[in-house]
């Protein structure tokens, strides 16, 4: 009978561990409370099922333990019981799925006014690009990448001239402004993930993927790469800073545009030609 007791401990212990655990979702810092809510809903529904089935098992093991002169019930099936279990499960599943799909729908529908920010991943680090005054990001191509043009911006595209390039530094975002991150990679797969924002998406060379969110809490957050990208994967960290409008404008004013960088490079090339 130890097993009945241990199964009981396992089921109840899981609940106790949950209550006691200091490890739980990080405090949310974006608009994706929907994800947390769906998660919590699923957590409690499935947790309930786990407890119920587990405890029923404990009961069965204890109640129907072997006795020499008893026989089990002979009942190959019970259509009614099976039918009820099936539809209850189906209803439960639909109840979990529906909110999930609604949230997903929001996740893939980007609001018009979202600010576009490009994140460009490489082995192993992050570069960013902001649209500049025209609010349009210039075209890029891996073809064009060179030492002078690390983002591979298309020199013929006027929209790219005022793009602000943030190389190997922290990304700043303005609070309560929806952001659409455009994700690309110059080498292998990566994934732009900030746990507090909840969202994530792979970056695929040759493609531009995206997602959107609205930062809702000021602070510094850690960026983690969430797709294996080689030996340096675990060290591919970054920082994103969410701040109020005034701080954000200050930061923005310090960033250099593509045009400025090109100009700088020319002077460098002129003076110390290599």
């Amino acid at each position, binding site marked *: 009978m130890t097993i009945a007791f241990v199964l009981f401990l396992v089921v109840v212990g899981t609940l106790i561990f949950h209550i006691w655990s200091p490890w739980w979702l990080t405090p949310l810092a974006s608009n994706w409370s929907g994800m947390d809510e769906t*998660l919590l809903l699923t957590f409690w529904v499935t947790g309930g099922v786990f407890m119920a089935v587990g405890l029923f*098992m404990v009961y069965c093991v204890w109640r*129907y333990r*072997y006795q020499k002169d008893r026989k*089990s019930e002979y009942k190959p099936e019970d259509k009614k019981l099976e039918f009820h279990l099936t539809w209850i499960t189906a209803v439960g599943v639909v109840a979990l*799925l529906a909110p999930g799909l609604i949230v997903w729908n929001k996740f893939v529908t980007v609001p018009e006014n979202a600010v576009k920010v490009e994140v460009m991943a490489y082995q192993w680090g992050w570069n960013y690009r902001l649209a500049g005054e025209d609010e349009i990001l210039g075209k890029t191509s891996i073809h064009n990448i060179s030492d002078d043009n690390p983002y591979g911006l298309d020199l013929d595209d006027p929209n790219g001239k005022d793009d602000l390039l943030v190389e190997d530094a922290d990304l700043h975002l303005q609070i309560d402004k929806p952001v659409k991150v455009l994700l690309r990679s110059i080498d292998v797969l990566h994934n732009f993930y900030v746990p507090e924002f909840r969202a994530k998406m792979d970056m695929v060379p040759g493609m531009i993927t995206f997602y959107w969110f609205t930062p809702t809490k000021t602070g510094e957050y850690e960026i983690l790469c969430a797709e*294996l*990208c080689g030996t340096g994967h675990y060290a591919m960290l970054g920082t994103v800073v969410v701040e109020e409008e005034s701080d954000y404008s200050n930061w923005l004013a310090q960033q250099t545009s593509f045009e400025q960088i090109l100009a700088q490079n020319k002077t460098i090339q002129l003076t110390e030609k290599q």
Partner: protein
Amino acid sequence: MSDEFDYKIEAKAADATTADASAPPIDYVPPAERPEQELYHSKSWWTTYVFSQDAKYIGVQYTCVATAIAVVGLILSLMMRTQLAFPGLNVLDPSTYYQFVTMHGMIMVVFFLTALFLGGFGNLLIPLMCGARDMVFPYVNMLSFWIFVLAILLLVSSFFVPGGPTGAGWTLYPPQAITVGTPGNLWGMVMMLASLVFFVIGFTMGGLNYVITVLQARARGMTLMRLPLSVWGIFVATVLALLAFPALLVGGIMLLLDAVLGTSFFMPEMISMGEKLSTEGGSPILFQHLFWFFGHPEVYIVALPAFGIVSDLISVHARRNLFGYRMMVWAIVAIAALSFIVWAHHMYVAGMRPWFGYFFATTTLIIAVPTAIKVYNWVLTLWRGNIRLTVPMLFTLAFIITFLNGGITGLFLGNVAIDVPLSDTYFVVAHFHMVMGIAPVLVVFGAVYHWFPLVTGRMLDEGLGKIHFWITFVGTYMIYTPMYYQGFLGVPRRYFEMYESSYASTVGLNVFITVAALIVGLSQLIFFYNIINSARAGKKAKKNPWDANSLEWQTPEMPPKHGNWGNELPVVYRWPYDFGVPGIDKDYIPQNVSPSQVSGAKADKT
């Protein structure tokens, strides 16, 4: 034929004998119409013990090789765990860590569990449970095993090639898998892919045997719906594998060409570590589709045999007819069919078209229904049973809880909006270990304790078995439950260490997990000791030691000899779950016991 089998079952009702006075005897069976299979009889030592063509023997060979490679996989995982918990010890460096993750994952999923369930248990159980003398193509079966050995040798030799084994993750995603930022990107990858190609070829040869034996070589009276669920599970899993492995083969071959010849099937234009590659236009996502078209069914290739076997173990040890046999068969078939249209739930955040998310989330959650029904039916088989808490039963109970735990967390990951925060975190690691790692392994242990007497004629030691069980069950639960919480927190998977990240705070938890893992790992020595010791000096098993109904225990000799059935093939009169039939003295009726031997039974209660 019944006399020599010694299974007379006395009817309780004294006047029952009058029943078979009427004209057509109830156990009349038309004579066999087809000739007996010609059996291969080996002549030399080599063909008896090495290149054996006896399915039972091949099954044991498969089991031994798969277990041996699993030990390698286990040792790799323990070293990874040590690294994660004690980064200061510098057990591994990042490259080795990624190489170990990859080899561990691939070994456990493909070379251990797939080979063990289909090659090992498939070969051992299919002919015996179907009432056949052997597989239909014994020679091909033998080749299948040796090609598997070749695949294993290639896999192991990748540890010794320049650059070491591949560190691409078991998913082998290009471009990363074959570019310089990843360890073992050339030779390791070539060996891995070559090994997989041979595995698929070898498996296809075996699979041919399993499918055709089940379909065409059963004993008389053995309809498909009288087959034990073990056979159903292995059979359907084999069909799945025959249809799914080609996707891996195709993806693997194309990736191999990308790696060796520099083609651009999957390789886009890219700059690898500052150097522009000559490839262009390839689509990394295409590989992911091919991989997961194999990869998702693969989960069920491992799970379905486990489902089947566990159903039989429950029924036998709970002394109760399996509850809802038909539902169980339907669920197996439904899960198998659905498993081909859910693959992209592994790619919700891979950058594919957003509307795929709706479709695949829906199909994925639909699969939850038949899966849940299976769990209900297992538990309902316990209900009103007469449960013998033998070691196999303990493992079975542990399986149900573990599978339930892993299964419900699948509802998180299948539901696309929740997968967004949780994918690629430790939540995933915990989920798939519970559902397709630990749960099937618990079934393997249960099955080994159950069928060990069939292979060796001796019982495994109960006491040692119980110690092994307690450590394994409680230990693995302690390893993986905390990982869910690391996942909630956002700790990403495939991280060599938490580096400067704030998630370094979970190192304390990691120590706990690792200590549990080391204890579980070491406790497997008890199991191996038990196997070796009991095979030599264990308690002699009586015939049909668990009072089971299915045919494998009804052979004239135990362990069964070459050809399994002596002079006469068995004839089947009932399904394998006649436990606790009312009106009968004994609580079980083997499948080959004819109605006249049990007359008086009221077997028809629905």
